[in-house]
């Protein structure tokens, strides 16, 4: 244990003294992330937007419709502001809101008359999610209104114009509103929006959530490859055989290197999750678990990479093999292109690469989905794979690599 800590400290000191290598592995994905951020801007799975409502009718029913935008789950996303139609159009021209809803004069009357009611919606072409929500929600509410008309047509007709509705009518309206909200709910559920938006090309995409975890794993892969390659440097420097002749033998050295790698991954994960949430609006439902997962799975990737290193025949073939593996795994494993943008066959392979699989697990943890047992199984699997790799690496280091 003591020798492991000594070895860990040495390793961390080396990285502190010579941070350039580490910086490059983490820098490449960071540069890509910044580019993505500049290209696509801030995406967020819970969309926010301003909706302008111009109520030209000012009847009981029009007020109900206008009020509906600031109720239920929509209230979280939409900031509703009452405007006149002229002011609304002016502000839409300036791109100040996601949508403008104009309820024309006579809306309430035609509603009562069971005549077709028209509502005008002006949407902001620069935004895609919020305008769609407004359109869909309005349609759903008008649908519900139609249902309301059908169910309570008689009552409506008997309703004295301009008077307050009876208790029964209020109750019926409440049912209708409830129905509306339920119908509209499917547009508000973030995972559904996620699936819908990421499936199509021209629909809005949450770039942060889509690309960021992949970029994080690119950094993990690059760092794992680079740090495990260090075993060849230690061999050439003679520090590996020297450490192997110490009481702690190669296990102390390898343990220290692994611990240092995990520390780097934890730091990387913490910076990534916090930075992603702050800059890209990345959803992070279980941030601590996600960071631990990055450290844990990163450690296993490090050992897998080490497995490659200690079986290479020379440091040149180790370097080439390492670069090849990292590039290939990053490409197929969802680090350059998210699985959603890959051809199906490639995504099918990619999801079963170690990093691709770990990446999917990270996304599950970030989105808060997945059941705890599955997460536990994933951790157990990583531990198992890690232990096997560790065992083979130690054996190989002792038997063949040093000689």
């Amino acid at each position, binding site marked *: 244990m003591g020798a492991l800590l000594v070895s860990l400290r040495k390793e961390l000191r*080396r990285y502190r003294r010579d941070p350039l290598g580490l910086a490059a592995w983490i820098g490449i994905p960071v540069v890509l992330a910044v580019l993505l951020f500049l290209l696509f801007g801030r995406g967020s799975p819970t969309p926010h937007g301003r909706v302008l409502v111009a109520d030209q009718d000012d009847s009981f029913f029009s007020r109900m419709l206008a009020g509906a935008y600031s109720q239920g789950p929509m209230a979280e996303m939409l900031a509703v502001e009452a405007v006149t139609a002229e002011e609304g159009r002016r502000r839409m021209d300036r791109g100040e809101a996601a949508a403008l809803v104009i309820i024309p004069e006579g809306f309430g009357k035609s509603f009562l008359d069971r005549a077709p009611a028209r509502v005008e919606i002006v949407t902001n072409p620069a935004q895609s999610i919020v305008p769609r929500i407004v359109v869909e929600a309005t349609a759903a509410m008008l649908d519900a209104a139609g249902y309301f008309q059908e169910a309570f047509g008689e009552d409506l007709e008997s309703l004295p114009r301009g008077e307050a509705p009876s208790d029964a009518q209020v109750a019926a309206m409440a049912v209708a509103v409830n129905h509306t909200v339920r119908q509209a709910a499917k547009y508000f559920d973030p995972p559904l929006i996620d699936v819908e938006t990421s499936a199509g090309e021209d629909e809005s995409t949450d770039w942060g959530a889509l690309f960021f975890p992949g970029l994080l794993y690119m950094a993990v892969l690059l760092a794992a490859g680079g740090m495990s390659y260090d075993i060849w440097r230690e061999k050439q420097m003679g520090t590996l055989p020297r450490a192997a002749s*110490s*009481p702690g033998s190669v296990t102390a050295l390898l343990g220290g290197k692994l611990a240092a790698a995990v520390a780097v991954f934890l730091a990387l994960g913490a910076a990534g999750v916090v930075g992603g949430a702050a800059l890209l609006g990345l959803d992070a439902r279980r941030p601590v678990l996600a960071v631990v997962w990055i450290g844990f799975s990163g450690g296993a990737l490090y050992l897998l990479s080490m497995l490659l290193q200690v079986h290479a025949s020379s440091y040149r073939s180790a370097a080439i093999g390492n670069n090849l593996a990292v590039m290939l795994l990053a490409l197929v494993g969802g680090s350059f292109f998210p699985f959603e943008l890959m051809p199906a066959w490639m995504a099918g392979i990619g999801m079963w690469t170690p990093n691709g699989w770990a990446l999917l697990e990270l996304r599950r943890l970030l989105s808060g989905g997945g059941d705890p047992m599955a997460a536990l199984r994933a951790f157990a699997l990583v531990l198992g794979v890690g232990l096997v790799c560790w065992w083979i690496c130690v054996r190989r280091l002792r038997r063949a690599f040093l*000689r």
Partner: protein
Amino acid sequence: MIQVERLRKLYGALVAVENASFEVRAGEIFGLLGPNGAGKTTTIGCISGLLRPDAGSVRVNGHDVGADGFEARRSLGIVPQEIALYEELSAVENLEYWGGLYGLRGRELKERSREVLELTGLAERATEPVKGFSGGMKRRLNLACGLVHEPRVLLLDEPTVGVDPQSRVRLLEVIREQARAGACVLYTTHYMEEAETLCDRIGVMDHGRIIAQGTLAELRAMLGERDMLRLTGRFAPAAARRLLAENGGVEVVQAEESVLLCAVSDAPRRLPGLLSALAESGMEIRDVTLTQPSLESLFIKLTGKELRE
């Protein structure tokens, strides 16, 4: 403290060490002397547990290196032939790492690091990254890293290569100090003078075999009181051999067209006669070297070749 018995180590078909046996006791400096490729580093590798012997046994401090490696390694201090340091770390950080691996901690580690830095004359550069050190300074630190934990058994593989004469004298003194304090030191070198001045006992190694071992006096006795005469020029080997053999007290070690080597007793008196005999038979003598009995001459006698070729 170190017991090597019938050690044999192969690299594929190449026999690197063959039937090597020797023992180094506490407080003793044992020199392993041999030319490049003799098998010195391979022997040290087998003692440190880095290499697995193909036959024979190695015990360190009573523990079998193969069966009880951990205990054996605990008493070892190793200074490898190649400089094995972290160049990006400072001298102190290197010492703290290598000392830490052998269980030194805290105050003790700091104090010992400072001590060995003083001993090796690196105290002033203690906190600089090693990559800025000169070759000789790295050598000295390489040695310091093997001494920091005060090991009971020291394996030193040519630790003074490339060190300037003053520093070398100082390092050898440091090593003697270790032995005086009770350490058992195995020291490999191909510097004759070093082996002669430093080592209590010496094993002469060539082609994987230990061809002679003993104290300097014992080895000298093997040569007899004879000096080594080395002639260069142009010779007829067979005729020269015959001519020289006719003179009593001359043993021809090597006879080639350009070199003649022989062990001669009472050389100063015999020399003129030998030279004129050779000259009279038409051979050309360009250079004459007469050497007092030394390890070099012993080595030449044993192997028929010079140590530094």
